[in-house]
């Protein structure tokens, strides 16, 4: 049941009325959230609800067992059990076929052709999000930074909390469980901000859907079709995809945060204008913040962080971060590419002769940094989205040889202009909310006009039910 459907609107209005006017006791609200979240999830596939319950139950009891024992070896075994259970679920549903295929290819390379059967399992929506969230709980408890909570109902309700269940943000137990203990009362200021974020998210999603056409025109093509594309079309397609994935995912996150606010819950921001980043490191501080901080806190630091083998740790973290997005060589290559970028950034910023450049606040220097970062991120998206690595390489090559490409049709320029407009609009809307959000929310007429304008836009050109990209991760 995606947020951008009339069915979700009906679901949420009913849920909201029950939550605000009927189920007023904390325990009854926990049941309501749990049932509501399962109904929400059943909108995709009710058969996978037991997976969420397994993940929650295992981690709930493992966390209790971890604090109940002083034996370090047992604590380690329990933690390994939790991690194995969660990664096992992920491995079976998400990576098994990829691994089998890779093994077959590897054996074939050495002259042992084998035919390994594919499992062809349906990927449960949101599995990458809730397993990471659940794992963070046991790791935090193991590390002693968070005390386990009593009450499986509360834990399961928090893990399956529908605004963030299927596409994040990935919440830490310490961010969400205390809120489930107090069941915060929604404030009018928070609700106004929630309504703004829902409208902004829906608008960004609408713009993302509009950009999906030009992006697909470039990326849903094989190597032969790439040859007939002009550089204008390739550039447009790449920019359109950059806008599409940002609008799609950050739009979803905005809506999730907004819905949370309407119910009184605070969910942290997941994006901070990532395409304005001044370096690849900065980009990852602004893009999918809940994942990048998760990887930093639970993987990078566990590997040794900055203390030893720093660059290797960065590379492992980024490659696994790439693989988190999907089982494919392109995701792995994308993670590797970003790993290289981050390592290069650290390397260059440590170089003596670049100290002046790295620390400069000069406008032109900042522009160069932004341009370089944005360019690198765009190249990364080609690797991420192309149907295979051959096509990705072709696209990158052809983008850099404008003279050798076919002349672009006249409509290509118009599509390029419209794509730039849609891309820029997302950022303008984000900027308005960041810069003037408080002012807008404090004046009723301004707030209503802003919301009506955005809703009218979504109503006019939005495609309700257009799938969210991150559901497939």
């Amino acid at each position: 049941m995606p947020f951008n459907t009339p069915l979700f609107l009906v679901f949420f209005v009913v849920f909201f009325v029950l939550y605000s006017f009927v189920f007023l006791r904390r325990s009854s609200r926990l049941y309501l959230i749990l049932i509501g979240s399962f109904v929400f999830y059943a909108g995709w596939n009710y058969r996978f609800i037991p997976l969420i319950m397994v993940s929650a139950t295992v981690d709930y009891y493992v966390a209790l067992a971890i604090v109940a024992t002083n034996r370090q070896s047992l604590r380690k075994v329990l933690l390994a059990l939790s991690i194995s259970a969660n990664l096992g679920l992920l491995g079976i549903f998400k990576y098994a076929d990829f691994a089998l295929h890779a093994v077959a290819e590897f054996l074939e390379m050495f002259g042992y052709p084998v035919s390994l059967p594919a499992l062809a399992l349906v990927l449960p929506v949101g599995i990458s999000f809730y397993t990471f969230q659940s794992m963070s709980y046991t790791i935090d408890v193991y590390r002693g930074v968070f005390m386990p909570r009593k009450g499986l109902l509360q834990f399961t309700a928090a893990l399956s909390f529908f605004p963030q269940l299927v596409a994040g943000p990935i919440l830490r137990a310490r961010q969400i469980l205390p809120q489930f203990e107090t069941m915060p009362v929604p404030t009018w200021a928070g609700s106004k901000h929630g309504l703004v974020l829902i409208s902004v998210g829906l608008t960004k999603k609408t713009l993302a859907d509009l950009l999906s056409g030009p992006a697909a025109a470039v990326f849903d093509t094989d190597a032969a079709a790439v040859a007939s594309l002009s550089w204008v079309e390739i550039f447009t397609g790449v920019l359109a995809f950059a806008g599409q994935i940002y609008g799609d995912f950050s739009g979803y996150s905005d809506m999730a945060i907004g819905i949370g606010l309407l119910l009184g819950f605070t969910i942290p921001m997941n994006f901070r204008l990532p395409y304005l980043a001044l370096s690849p490191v900065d980009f990852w501080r602004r893009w999918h913040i809940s994942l990048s901080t998760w990887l930093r806190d639970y993987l990078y630091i566990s590997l040794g962080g900055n203390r030893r083998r720093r660059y290797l740790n960065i590379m492992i973290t980024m490659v696994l971060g790439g693989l988190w997005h999907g089982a494919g060589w392109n995701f792995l290559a994308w993670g590797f590419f970003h790993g290289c970028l981050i390592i290069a950034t650290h390397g260059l910023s440590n170089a003596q002769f670049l100290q002046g450049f790295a620390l400069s606040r000069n406008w032109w220097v900042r522009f160069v940094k932004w341009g370089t970062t944005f360019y690198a991120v765009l190249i990364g998206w080609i690797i991420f989205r192309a149907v295979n690595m051959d096509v990705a390489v072709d696209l990158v090559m052809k983008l850099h040889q404008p003279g050798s490409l076919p002349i672009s049709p006249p409509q290509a320029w118009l599509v390029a202009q419209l794509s730039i407009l849609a891309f820029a609009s997302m950022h303008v809307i984000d900027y308005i909310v960041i810069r003037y959000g408080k002012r807008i929310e404090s004046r009723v007429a301004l707030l209503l006009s802003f919301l009506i304008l955005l809703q009218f836009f979504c109503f006019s050109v939005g495609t309700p039910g257009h799938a969210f990209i991150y559901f497939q991760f």
Partner: protein
Amino acid sequence: MGSHNSDCRSVARKTLFTGGFVFATAALLYIGIMGLAVKETGLGIRRLNQASEQLPHIADNPAAKKIAIVYGSSLVHAGFSPDIFDSEMEAKGIDLVSYNFGFDGLNPEYQHLYAKRIMDEFQKRGKKIDAVLIEFNPFQATLTRRGHDQSMSDQWYASFCSPAELWDITLTDPQRGTRLLEIRYLRNGLSSELVTTALRLALKLHEPTLPSTDYAEVLTKRRKLKSRFRRELKKDLGERYRQQWNPAFRGARLSRKYLSDHTIDLYEQLTASLRHPVQLEQDLKKRVEFCDIVKLNFDDGQIDEFINLVRTFKSMSRHVEIILLPQNREWIQNPPETKNRLNQVLDRIKAETQVAIRNYQQTPEISKNHFSDVTHLTRISGSEAFTRILARDMKFRF
């Protein structure tokens, strides 16, 4: 606890009121603005809306004549003249009133949905249609065409389904059902896909590249000719000019009876200009890209829908036939394997419906000059020529 709950309720009330107000205002704005857009530009559905408005009157049949409906795609819209058909039939001693129910952009699946609504009107009055000629348009039943039609699926389902059918869909697929209900009742039948499709057409995002500057001159001349023709047409038709499904023409776009010789002459000049090889080549390219018009790889699902469509009409009509309109042989040359495929499909339709098929695709009496593009007959000389052939061959026994 009490103040906690009352705070919660108070904020919730404000939230519901604000959200509801915003949603309702945005919806009203949308309905108002899109309503104007439909009035001004049609947005691709004006003809269907106007035809639907006329259905009760047609079913009432105040003239108490035999009723014939020619149902199909834009080929019928352009290529069938009720005036000519009726007068030819009169000459044969059959007192009949015919209607052009040809609609652009509907594949057999959507045609079938709309056919059910036509039948409803007759059924309500306990009547049957005397004759229905159903066009089978091969390039509307291809896999390629289906792929390009998908985006409008919700629009047509929301427009054509009966409330009972909508309810059934909602029960089996709540997500789709609520979306269809939203289009039908909250958006006044105008989906956002309709708007984006209209915008795409207005911005000409799918227009092919102009091959030379010489052709640009031809285009400029044509544009002038077109505006002169429109001016004259407005003069001749007056209020009727805006009607896409004109009751006076019984659904045809143009009728010689209502036009001056000058307007007809301008129209013929305009269609002759449209037959420029560059234009036709581009048109063919577009038809190949969007409809697979040369190879015709059929979508079995669409063939099934067409068979169901014929059965629906057959259940409520006294005489049903299937027709295939003339093909522009100069431009569309199907390879032998395509012809075999088409013959197989026609055999299947005939076997499963037990309805006769008249295939006019290769009729020698229709030449390249009867067409305004690679697929459509011209709305005057082309449609008249074909309608005469059709009327000549029709043998109704009422």
